[in-house]
């Protein structure tokens, strides 16, 4: 059963990340490929606080969320000045920069060796050590984040963000704030990323830079694409499907030496197939 639990835990964590990515990329139209970096900052801040016994779990989550909120605003700032594809490259750059920092800032991140023996999460003195309770915590966090996402998107704010994606100039001409709205989207996505990072670090009890690299950012993007952009359902379905996919594909019998490459290749083919034949993903709107 624990296998299924751990799958559900990771999937719920990635749903929270999927919400962040969907908010920026799908809804606000800010094509950020550096959300894994934010996720990593959340994880490292939490790990640092807990390993060095600076504070307890909940304050650490708050710290991580706060740090990610500020940082995400800063790294999204170029999007306010630089348009479209230029920002994509800037965003790729930020992701590579973050990876370099995770790898080389040994004092804070443990460098390539990562940080081990991260204590489990605890709520009001009750340590969450077994997988079952961790699952409850993660699902609860996921539901809260989904609720926040739903409320924000079905409000005048959500409508404002959609309008900004469609036509920034028209929004400005209607006397609405464009830059503060975008910055707020980045902030909200940052909070999601920070919370997800905290849960991830305490669940695995070990983190290293490989979980927060460019590939992870691309994986996040794929989750949103496959699940479906711009909708809550899409943000939830995507992570569940993509995390299950490699596990399911191992059951297809391919010569073992080739299996892995074939699997990863299939995964790329899937992206292309979706883009060609179903750009709205499984349950989203057309990108």
């Amino acid at each position: 059963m624990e296998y299924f639990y751990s799958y559900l835990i990771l999937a719920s964590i990635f749903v929270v990340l999927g919400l962040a990515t969907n908010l920026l990329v799908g809804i606000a139209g800010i094509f950020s490929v550096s959300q894994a970096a934010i996720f990593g900052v959340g994880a490292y801040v939490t790990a640092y606080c807990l390993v060095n016994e600076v504070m307890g779990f909940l304050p650490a989550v708050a710290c991580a969320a706060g740090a990610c909120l500020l940082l995400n605003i800063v790294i999204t700032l170029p999007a306010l000045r630089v348009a479209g594809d230029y920002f994509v490259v800037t965003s790729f750059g930020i992701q590579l920069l973050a990876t370099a920092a995770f790898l080389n800032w040994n004092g804070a991140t443990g460098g390539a060796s990562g940080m081990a023996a991260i204590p489990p999460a605890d709520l009001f003195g009750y340590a969450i050590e077994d997988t079952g309770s961790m699952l409850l915590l993660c699902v609860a966090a996921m539901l809260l984040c989904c609720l926040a996402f739903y409320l924000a998107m079905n409000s005048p704010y959500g409508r404002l963000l959609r309008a900004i994606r469609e036509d920034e100039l028209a929004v400005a001409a209607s006397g609405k704030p464009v830059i503060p709205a975008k910055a707020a989207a980045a902030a909200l996505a940052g909070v999601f990323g920070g919370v997800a990072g905290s849960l991830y670090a305490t669940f695995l009890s070990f983190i290293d830079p490989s979980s927060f690299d460019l590939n992870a950012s691309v994986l996040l993007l794929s989750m949103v694409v496959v699940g479906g952009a711009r909708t809550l359902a899409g943000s939830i379905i995507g992570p569940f499907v993509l995390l299950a996919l490699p596990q399911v594909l191992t059951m297809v019998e391919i010569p073992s030496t080739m299996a892995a490459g074939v699997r990863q290749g299939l995964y790329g083919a899937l992206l292309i197939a979706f883009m060609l034949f179903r750009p709205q993903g499984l349950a989203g709107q057309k990108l």
Partner: protein
Amino acid sequence: MTDHHRAAISDVAAAPVGRRLFTGALLAGLAGLSRHARAADPIRLGAVLPLTGPSAATGAQEQRGLQFAVTKFNAAGGAGGRMIEILYEDNQGRPDQSVLAFNKLADLNKVPVIFTGYTGPTLAMAPLATRKKVLLVNGAAQGDRLANASPYLINTLPVVRDEAAVAARYLYETGKRKAAILFQNDAAMTSGRDDFAEAFTKLGGTVIGQEQSSFSQTDFRPAILKLTSLEPDVLFVMLTDGLGALAEQVEQAKPGFTIAGTSFFADPTALRQKGSTGWIHTQVRVKAPPETAAAFKQQAGTEMDFFGIQYANAGSIILRTIAGVMTDKAELSGEAIRTKLFAIRQFNEIIPTEFKTNTASMQIDVVKIVDGKDEFVKSYTSE
């Protein structure tokens, strides 16, 4: 996998990509939960290796080595008539995927033993191994923190500290006083750098500079140039990847210092290069007996290299232990295999290996590469 499952899955695989694939595949995955091992079934063991991603090269070598040991063991009749089957899982070299794969193998497939490698993923799985009493066998990672990560973690290769200490000792004994270090930025190689620097300094030498390469990098020229300008007596190299390229580039730069390293130097692509002549390295016994190497080449289609040998050795050790457990008619659990392993203690499979702790001790030789062959220089024993 029963025929029914196989049919279901191939149907799904043939279906057009879309919603159907995922729901179908998910259902098939859930159906798998209900499967149980039967007595006539083969004994299933797990392996969590980086089969894709940047470390895939190493992962493929490890897989070949492990599969070689299993094929050989099965050909010889298996364990009490039961065949061994390895279920390979890909972790892409990432800790989170490793945890998922570990839980899958432990919960769904009920394997008593899981083979793995790489320091980060192994450290992530170690607490799970302790909790679930599944024996985690690390065949190649050498990060120092692995030594005490879990009682259920068996390292069939000495951690890097042992080799680095021997290298430092030998180099100091042969009059080297100024060392520069070139290392790959990953967990094991950075520990190796620290271990060597500590041992060498303690002996009275100085480390005058170090440069880092990233994994899968093959352009070492800037690093070599910079370190050369410091005029060291010796360049200590901690790389698992790209040694062939390093050999080529060193050959072209013709620096005046010795190049030294650890077991990872036994890399066929490096040995083929003229530039590797004169390199000195420590070596846990990585030479397979010639007939083993020939059999491997025939089976796998490639040379038996460092990781191939290590995983063939790790596999043989565990299979031998499992055979022992079966002879005892004990239940085949991770705990039983662990107990039996320490009871046997001394293994003479492909490489002579002894388990005083959960990390193997092996004899460590210092050798010199001459025209792609190792020339024995001196022998030490790891602690």
